[in-house]
């Protein structure tokens, strides 16, 4: 096949949204709403629990110059699975899937053969060093195990062919790497990927998953891993040293916690502690001329508890394609999610929520056909079979009136999910949104029975032709001052060279427009609402000025 016609897989950030149709009277919509709400509470609480676990075992150190030297996390581990990790890290196949290229991952597992229930794993999340580090040969001597061993608090450094045994404890270091030798004088840094962390935690972490449904476990681990690595990234950049939020995610629990804070405030008999904003956050108010740094800020812990919202921030739940299959039944689309999978039969939540009415679809399975995207991707697995783990929820109508055909036709959402030739489903995200007060109702007022509604956002990918690099390239950079700068270059004998370059300064009208844009960006950066009438008018005015100027 000619190179120009060859196709490659491209992940595109395209999303189609399908709102859950939880409307009408009776017990069924109530149960659907309760299940969706419970799923989001579960993911929030699980991530919160995992982050608490991470926080207890998190350690980092900085050098004298302020740069981050390393960041580790020690967690309780399951023993007896070493073989799998070795396979995971040294075998090429899983490495390729988990994108381990251009990095190496270090992980330690410590255990006592006499007490198999007590084991720990240490993961080096970030490692930085100056100069050369040879990872190809006797790597156990190159990696400084000392901090890690000291962190365990039970071991001493006695390397012996990669295994260290002290006082009946064993520690094994496992790593995977592709780059054998790194020779650079400047600071090198290595950071784990969220995928590796998720895989390692799934294999090793000793965590009580019994009361958590399977659809939540993977996404919770991934989100917790991402938040931890994001924290490490911020530490590296010196931005923010506070650990990711582990606040209460259960709405009922959060309200109770907040009410307790209100009572504590009402009981206060000593007053509050105040500090200047500069003392409280020296980095933010480093400029001594900034007057805002001199104002007094209440730093009392109880007041901080009281000041946070009584309503928890809801997390979204990312579901893999096999956990969120869309079916068609007549003109309506349904989403199937195995919400009770992984829970015991006598689990309290299962008993409370799995009402017989939820499984109304058991006697209609032949009427459901999977949408082509899932059929193509999952094959026979996409077929619906009766079970007591899965719920089927209707999605809102996605039909538009066609004047030409004189009937309702499929909308964007449905058409995208039918398009199996070039599109592929990647992930679906379940999120909760506040119901709009003036939203159009399809089922009378019953649509607004609940204060919130749920929506599934389907991320889809598609194939596109491989991009060929042209002989000459022009690069254009848009900024505020100058407005446009550009450079044209080509590659001669493998070396890039610049042929021509220039810039466009702009004019007064453009400047004023860009100033307004900067102001808008600043406002949006402060999380202020920028979609109001005032800003709309400003934008319209600038656009008119620009179009009338013929520039």
């Amino acid at each position: 096949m000619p190179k120009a016609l060859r196709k490659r897989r491209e992940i595109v950030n395209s999303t189609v949204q399908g709102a859950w149709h939880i409307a009408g009277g009776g017990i069924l919509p109530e149960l659907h709403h309760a299940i969706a709400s419970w799923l989001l509470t579960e993911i929030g609480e699980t991530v919160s629990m995992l982050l608490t676990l991470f926080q207890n075992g998190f350690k980092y150190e900085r050098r004298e110059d302020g740069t981050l030297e390393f960041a580790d996390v020690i967690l309780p581990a399951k023993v007896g699975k070493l073989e799998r990790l070795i396979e995971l890290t040294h075998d090429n196949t899983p490495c390729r899937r988990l994108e381990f290229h251009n990095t190496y991952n270090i992980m330690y597992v410590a255990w006592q053969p006499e007490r198999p229930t007590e084991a720990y794993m240490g993961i080096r999340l970030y490692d930085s060093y100056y100069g050369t580090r040879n990872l190809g040969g006797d790597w156990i001597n190159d990696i400084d195990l000392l901090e890690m061993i000291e962190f365990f608090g039970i071991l001493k450094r006695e390397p012996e062919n990669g295994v260290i045994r002290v006082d009946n404890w064993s520690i094994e270091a496992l790593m995977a790497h592709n780059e054998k030798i790194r020779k650079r004088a400047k600071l090198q840094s290595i950071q784990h990927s969220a995928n590796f962390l998720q895989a390692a935690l799934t294999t090793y972490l000793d965590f009580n998953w019994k009361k958590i449904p399977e659809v939540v476990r993977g996404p919770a681990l991934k989100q917790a891993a991402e938040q931890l690595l994001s924290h490490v990234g911020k530490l590296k950049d010196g931005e923010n040293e506070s650990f990711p939020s582990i606040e209460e995610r259960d709405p009922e629990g959060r309200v109770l916690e907040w009410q307790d804070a209100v009572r504590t405030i009402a009981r206060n008999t000593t007053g509050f502690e105040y500090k200047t904003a500069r003392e409280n956050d020296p980095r933010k108010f480093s400029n001594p001329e900034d007057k805002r740094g001199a104002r007094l800020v209440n730093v009392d812990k109880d007041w901080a508890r009281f000041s946070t919202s009584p309503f928890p921030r809801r997390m979204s739940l990312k579901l893999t394609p096999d956990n969120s299959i869309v079916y068609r039944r007549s003109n309506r689309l349904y989403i199937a999610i195995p919400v009770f999978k992984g829970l015991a039969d006598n689990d309290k939540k299962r008993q409370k929520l799995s009402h017989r009415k939820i499984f109304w679809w058991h006697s209609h399975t032949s009427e459901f056909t999977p949408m082509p995207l899932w059929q193509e991707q999952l094959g026979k697995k996409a077929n619906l079979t009766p079970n007591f783990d899965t719920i089927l929820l209707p999605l809102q109508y996605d039909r538009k009136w066609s004047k030409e055909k004189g009937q309702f036709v499929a909308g964007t959402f449905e058409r995208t999910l039918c398009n199996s030739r070039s599109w592929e489903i990647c992930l679906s995200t379940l999120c909760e949104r506040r119901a709009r007060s003036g939203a159009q109702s399809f089922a009378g007022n019953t649509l607004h029975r609940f204060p919130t509604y749920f929506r599934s956002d389907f991320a889809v990918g598609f194939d596109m032709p491989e991009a060929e690099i042209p002989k000459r390239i022009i690069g254009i950079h848009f900024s505020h001052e100058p407005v446009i700068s550009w450079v044209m270059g080509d590659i001669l004998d493998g070396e890039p060279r610049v042929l021509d370059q220039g810039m466009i300064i702009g004019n007064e009208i453009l400047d004023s427009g860009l100033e307004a844009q900067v102001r808008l960006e600043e406002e949006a950066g402060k999380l202020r609402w920028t979609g109001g009438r005032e800003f709309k008018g400003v934008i319209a005015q600038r656009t008119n000025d620009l179009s009338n100027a013929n520039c």
Partner: protein
Amino acid sequence: MTLVSTLLSIIVMVVFQRKRSMTTIPRSAQAKFDLACRLTKEINAHAERFTSNPKHFHDRQAKKVGLEKKVHLRGIVLGALLKQNEDLYKRALVIIKSEIETGKEKAHA
């Protein structure tokens, strides 16, 4: 002459108003005790309102009703009262505790 007297009266009014608006801690122990009790009642009213209606809460609302200021002022007043009269201070603490419990009972009812 009229102008001068008008100006003087305006200055007096402004100073008087300003002095009235400023929150000062009374000198006598009994007045401090009374102020602490008054503040307690107001604080508890706000707390009850927030507890029973978390939907309408946000930080600015708490600032608007002056909850932070009132709690802090009560702390200062009680600190000063402790130095001046320990018995009254203890009585004030008992009242604060009982007010909270009454509020709790009301909420439960």
